[in-house]
């Protein structure tokens, strides 16, 4: 199997995620962009695992999904706290500390 096509798709997804992180103003959308970038990396790992014919990649992806879930749990909890205290999740409003 040639992984190039899959890698191309993943690179495009990663680029969309990165651009999303840089330009979006809403923290939820920002977080979704980060997740998109992470999953693009998972796609690359899967494509290469298939190409090399090793199962290591499948295991890695499971671990990374778990890690991403833990990260999302902490991150969303913090977003909720922020919304309770400030009433907004627009990133432009968070300038108490000089960015």
């Amino acid at each position, binding site marked *: 199997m040639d*992984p190039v096509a899959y*890698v191309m798709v993943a690179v495009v997804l*990663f680029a969309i*995620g*990165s651009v999303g*992180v840089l330009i979006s103003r809403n*923290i939820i959308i*920002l*977080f979704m962009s*980060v997740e998109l*970038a*992470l999953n*693009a*990396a*998972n796609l*690359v*790992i899967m*494509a*290469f*695992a298939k*190409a*090399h014919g*090793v199962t*290591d*990649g499948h295991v*890695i992806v499971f*671990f*990374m999904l778990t*890690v991403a879930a*833990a*990260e999302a749990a*902490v*991150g969303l*909890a*913090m*977003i909720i*706290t*922020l919304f309770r*205290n*400030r009433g907004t999740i627009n990133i432009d409003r*968070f300038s*108490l*500390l*000089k*960015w």
Partner: protein
Amino acid sequence: MNYSELLAIDFRLIGPELALAIATCVIMLIASRRWARMAAPLLALAGLAVSGALALTQLATPATGFADMVTNDGFGTIFKLISVAVAIVTVFLGYRYFVVKQLDKPEYYALLLIATLGMMVMANSSNLIVILIGLEIMSVPLYALAGFNRRSLESNESGIKYFLIGAFATGFTLMGIAFLFGATASTDLRDIVNQFNAYRANAEAYLLLGTALTLVGFAFKIAAVPFHSWVPDVYQGAPTPVTAFFSVGPKAAAFAALIRIFDFGLGEIPGIEVAFGILAILTMTVGNVLAIRQDNIKRMLAYSSIAHAGYILVALAAGGQPAISAAVFYLIAYAVFNLGAFAVLTVLETRSGKRSDYREFAGLSKGHPYLAVALALFMFALSGFPPTVGFFGKYYIFSAVVNEGISANNGFLIALAIIGVLNSFISVYYYLRVVKTSYFDTTDGAYDRAQVSPAVTFVVALMAVGTLGLGIFPEQLLSLTRSAVFVFL
């Protein structure tokens, strides 16, 4: 791996990590009890002490296990000991601060222990995926710790900024590891080293791309310029003892992983030395120049931690055993005097409404003469005056880099060392401004004295003794780091 291999697993290899995991579980189980506020710090200290003792026994017996996922070599074990020591100091340093700010929840200690566990996992593996999982075990509790003061808007903001940048950086690291996996069909650094030339001939593009992306991900974690913009905000907003922990613990662990990946695993990649050199120049210069114009000492120390990461990157650019052992020496030295400086800040911030601006330090020498002396000592160490350990840290790094440059006939390395020395001259200005403020500036009214708890006194005294003691006898520590770096499994 078959069944008999599974039975033969030696759990002593992860003894220190298990001790921390068990202590964390116990703290979380008792967290709802009323007496947990008293018990949690004691339990945390007990867990850390057991973990440190187990790590000490590993120092003598390097070994690998868990299907080569765990590498207990001297290098990793030294970082285990650093992690434990930093966490113990943080517990002492923060106790009174958290009581005064009504934040003394058992969860704080649980999060601290998990972060320490992650640092250990990260430093103790030659497998890229285990390193990444260790990085995440470390980072996720750190996001929560940065935002630990839920009622403070600044702490909220610090946590969310750290979280978003950290998760984004993880994306880069994972993408990099994915491409390295694509180029080599393995995530084990020893495999990559052994068959480097074959891999390079087959898939050089993937290898280079993977290296670059991994480097970007780690550059975020060690706060190298241009990936540093989160550092001052996160350091300023987080509770001060947590900032103290951030500035030394996770940084040391990230450097451990960086050294293992780039100086051991991927050292043969063309151009890696120049990439590290440019990162080092940018990091030192930008960190020092921006530190000058800060009005808040926590922010100043944040930029200073960026600059210090730059000095260590100089050593990493040179590579080789003398430079790397100097880098490890510097990480230990920096931990000692930076924790000391943050301990003084923590005491002064227990006064109400204080946030560590320079002007709050006016009159310190009258109000707290001993703290003022200690703070001055730590500032002299940060700027690298003899006979503090800060001087020897810088001296070992720059001399190792110059020697490497001369023997390899590499002018770039010598230029790096010169830029590093010039930078440490710049840094003298803003460190001594703290000393000047605390000794020569006067307050308008009476000095607002803080209550100094015995725990913090202990930390300040210990760090002051360490700063001077290691400055007078630096050879002992250096020989320890040399022997540690020599044993890469």
